[in-house]
């Protein structure tokens, strides 16, 4: 599966994942505390410029953010109709700034770096005995490994429907999809245990 990371060498690319996440959190908090539409407007423009500096291109930007921007536009419109123009503008600027900043972080941080951060963030949970940090990386790997096969299986089930002259229906596709996929769980789990992958170090 292709990630949303885009290779590059700019300032944001060189900044550590942790720093970016912290800054994003701080910026989000600030954006929610600020009420002035003017300041929010400046924030939105600044976020826009930051995002633009990544040179992702119009097409990619549209592909990534179209649903989000449509949602933001809908909400702003709603606010315009039911509240006031000032509030609508504030909402629009705030949400847009957030979307752009978050997208900038996503585009400049690799999956590997993110996984390192998630694993690090899970360490306190590990102390509480809720989760093993190493299991997170393993689970992520497992999901990514089997998506293509499950996709193929879905296609095969659809094809089998068509071959029998049946219209593919959600229910008659998902039931075999689930059963055939989950049936592999025992062997996969045995293979993992046989290789002692989750053994304590």
């Amino acid at each position: 599966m292709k990630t949303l990371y885009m290779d590059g060498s700019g300032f944001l690319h060189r900044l550590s994942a942790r720093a970016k996440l912290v800054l994003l959190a701080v910026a989000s908090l600030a954006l929610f505390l600020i009420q002035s539409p003017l300041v929010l407007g400046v924030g939105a423009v600044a976020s826009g410029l930051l995002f633009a500096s990544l040179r992702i291109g119009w097409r990619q930007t549209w592909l990534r953010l179209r649903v989000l921007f449509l949602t933001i536009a809908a909400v702003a419109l709603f606010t315009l109709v039911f509240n006031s123009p000032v509030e609508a503008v504030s909402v629009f600027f705030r949400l847009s700034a957030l979307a752009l900043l978050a997208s900038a972080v996503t585009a400049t941080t690799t999956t590997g770096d993110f996984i390192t951060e998630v694993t690090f963030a899970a360490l306190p949970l590990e102390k509480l005995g809720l989760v093993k940090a190493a299991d997170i990386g393993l689970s992520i790997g497992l999901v990514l490994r089997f998506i293509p096969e499950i996709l193929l299986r879905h296609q095969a089930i659809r094809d089998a429907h068509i071959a029998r002259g049946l219209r593919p229906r959600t229910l008659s596709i998902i039931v075999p999809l689930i059963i055939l996929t989950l049936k592999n769980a025992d062997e996969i789990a045995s293979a993992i245990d046989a290789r002692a992958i989750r053994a304590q170090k």
Partner: protein
Amino acid sequence: MPTRDLVLAALFAAIIIVLGLVPPVMLGFIPVPITAQSLGVMLAGVVLGAKRGTIAVLLVLVLAAIGLPVLSGGRGGLAVFMAPTTGYLIGWVFAAMVTGYLSQIMVGRDQAGLVQGVNFFIAALMGGVIVLYGIGITYLALITGMGFVKAFLGSLAFIPGDVLKAVIAALAGRAVMAGYPLLPQRA
């Protein structure tokens, strides 16, 4: 957590993601193609139960957060967690949890098919609609300042589709329990 449970959750997370990747199929008589991904969340609950179902959903969200386009429409990245509709993603976690929990306590392998179906439907409805929309609407109301009533009105149109998904989830839950039961959870 037993390895088998981890694998089941991971495989189901992959199923939820695939449901967001495949072209939407007509859902019953509704003429609009609706993505099956939120159906996947309810399915996680009825098939895997609360713990494994919730982990499956969490895995999907983590994958989205780390920059993979796993949400329907090729969406992903941190931006989806800073959107007005983020409440629905948070709601997914609790939807799977509630649907899973109710499935575990209400549905038994020895029940008649009809009873199983009704119980699964209640579980899917409570989790996948009531809890999900409760959280989604609340989040929308707070983040945008539009208030509960307007947030609710804005979300109303999507509810019938999700109620239909709850029916499908119930039927699927029953069929999977007949073919490859994973509930009650093996020790």
